[in-house]
């Protein structure tokens, strides 16, 4: 996204918030956390929130280039905390993640990781996924720093070709049979 486009999005989201505040008749005080959650409960979202999710990430982040160190760290976290429910290339408990950084913004991915509960219960796109997979994403106690490493791992995987199920990162090794 170009800097111009980012600015434009930010401006749009600001307008949307102002509009919402206008609608809900609040004063010009900044929205409190409780007010924001109440607004989400009523199904009212800014266009920024619709595109980038709801949670601790509330504005565009500047992404550095993919760091190999973070990718390695992210892979370990992915294997311990994500691979239980996700393959990169196929449906498991949750959706495949190979192209997630192409389908969704980095802010959205981070909000999904860091705020799985509200994303699943309140955000329109999150609710659709919960309906589709009949499952809320589990909370795994991922820190913001860990989430940034996961994001780099997913960015690095995005351009690689698909691999078979038994070679998916963190896939359980099938036990020996008779």
């Amino acid at each position, binding site marked *: 996204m170009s800097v111009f486009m980012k600015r434009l999005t930010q401006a749009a989201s600001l307008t949307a918030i102002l509009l919402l505040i206008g609608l809900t008749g609040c004063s010009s005080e900044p929205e409190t956390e409780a007010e924001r959650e109440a607004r989400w409960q009523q199904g009212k979202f800014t266009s920024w929130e619709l595109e980038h999710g709801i949670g601790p990430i509330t504005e565009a982040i500047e992404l550095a280039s993919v760091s190999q160190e973070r990718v390695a760290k992210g892979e370990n976290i992915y294997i311990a905390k994500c691979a239980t*429910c996700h393959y990169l290339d196929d449906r498991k*408990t949750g959706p495949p993640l190979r192209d997630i950084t192409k389908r969704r913004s980095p802010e959205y991915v981070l909000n999904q990781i860091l705020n799985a509960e509200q994303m699943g219960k309140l955000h329109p796109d999150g609710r659709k996924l919960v309906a589709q997979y*009949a499952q*809320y994403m*589990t909370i795994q*106690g991922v820190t913001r720093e860990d989430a940034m490493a996961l994001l780099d791992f997913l960015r690095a995987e995005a351009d690689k070709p698909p691999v078979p199920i038994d070679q998916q990162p*963190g*896939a359980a090794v099938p036990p020996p049979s008779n």
Partner: protein
Amino acid sequence: MNIRLKQAVAITASWLAALMLLTGCGGNGRDGVAGTGDAAQRVYVAPGTHDEFYGFFSGGFSGQVSVYGLPSGRLLRHIPVFSQYGENGYGYSEETRNLLMTSFGFVPWDDAHHPQLSRTDGVPDGRWLFINGNNTPRVARLDLATFETAEIIELPHSAGNHASPFLTPNTEYVLAGTRFSVPIPQQDVPIDTYKDNFKGTLSFIRVDSITGGMSLAFQILVPGFNYDLSHAGKGPSHGWAFFSTYNSEQAHTLLEVNASRNDKDYLAAVNWKLAEKYVAEGRAKSLPASYRHNFLDEARIAKSEVIRSVKILHPRDCPDMIFYIPTPKSPHGVDVDPTGEYIVAGGKLATVIPVHSFSRMVKAIEDREFDGEVNGIPVLKYESVLAGEVQNPGLGPLHTEFDGKGYAYTSMFISSEIVKWQLGTWEVIDRAPAYYSIGHLMIPGGDSRAPFGKYVIALNKITKDRYLPTGPELAHSAQLYDITGDRMKLLLDFPTLGEPHYAQAIPASLVKDRSVRYFPIAENKHPHAIKAENQARVVRDGNLVRVYMSTIRTHFAPDNIEGIKVGDSMLFHVTNLEQDWDVPHGFAIMGANNAELLVMPGETRTLAWKPQFAGVFPFYCTDFCSALHQEMQGYVRVSN
């Protein structure tokens, strides 16, 4: 009203109450009940909101502890302690079985009577709950961060561990006295040599102030009476412990008659700080023993160790360590008031409630006002120690708790009522019926230096018609009364699990913030834990097959297991990889001869299973975990 008339009225009232009980009246008895709407409002805790107090009720012969919210009477948890518990695999899983080991082997049941909250400076601190096992003498410690049994220590040279596990003001020691005297050490002797061969012990279990870990510091060998209950001194009497006794007759048959002959039995007053000093000086003798100490280690796996000796003090070698205070008619409860000055005895066959004075006791000891001795233990003169007697309190006084405002509340078993009386004047202020046959009673913090007050709860032995009938076996009952005013007001009546023998309560604020929500998986030290799904595996070692299994919504890894032979023994080490509150997973496999496992988030638990014949056997998650819970399953293929 003159005193005689007053007494006559009180006696008549008591007998009327008893008569009502005998004739089975009182089914609709609303006596003493606050106005219905008012009572409902005062115990109403709106949906989604929390109670003010945690109440920890013993389960009596269920061997367990149940946790109620008060004042609503909501059941919050049932915590397994001395009895196996199929609901979560306690006492069945490989990690918990050792908690129930004793010198008699695996003993999966006991009779749990007296919960005691750990205390600091004489006030409950919300860290641990101790409870006694009567039948195979044991003391358990529950951790109130996890609400689970963390440790059980067996008591040697003990039988009928009833006067237990009462705590000193800073949880320095757990007190324990023997209800049944037995030959010490055990030996084969005729029962009619009771007076010569049977002895009691008073045990002092040291509690580590940081970890809560228990170790038996020393025992005192005492004459073969029945030691019934105990309480530690506090404030000025800190450093002393008091034990009630009955059967000072030392009868060994038909005790209901033969142990009720003496006008007075005794309270034993023990200067435990002096006893501690005598032990440090080397006056204790080492006595061979064999008892178990079981505890959860840092991997949350129960270890069981055997200990082979105990230090024992003989009163003859330890001057001024122990005295007997004569006390009327088989005293049951021995309760120390918040100031630490008054020691209230519940002489269950007595017509008065005697109250002893600690300061008078100290003076009587100084002045050597003795009335003989028993086996080297000086007997103090009753009148020299007595502070006062509550006259005509009712019939069958058992236990007393305090509101911290100068009043005492005593349970009356025979006349089935709670009697409120004033400390110092010994005047009866109020009485309220209990439905029926109250045993212990409990005021939040009511045995502490600073009671929290507000309510008194009657813990009743007989239920009869209080609830809808459920065949011959009925739940026991508890009743909650408001005590904020001059008169007690019955607000709530609720059934309990097992026998609610005794209970303790503490403001929720002292416990709830320390409650563990899940175990961080990174800190799981179980040697058979797995930290990620790709570590799931099946490992064969001869005939022993270990399955390293993970759970997460909504699958097991591995889910299908083949290569198992008839004759193998399997251990399923199930690690729950969830890292969120209230997401346990269950594990059950067809034909298991033990129970299920309930595995908390981040925890590892192990179920043993022995395939008996060839076939394919399913396992599944028992705890409804998600919409796809019914899909959470797997198979074990067993071949010849």
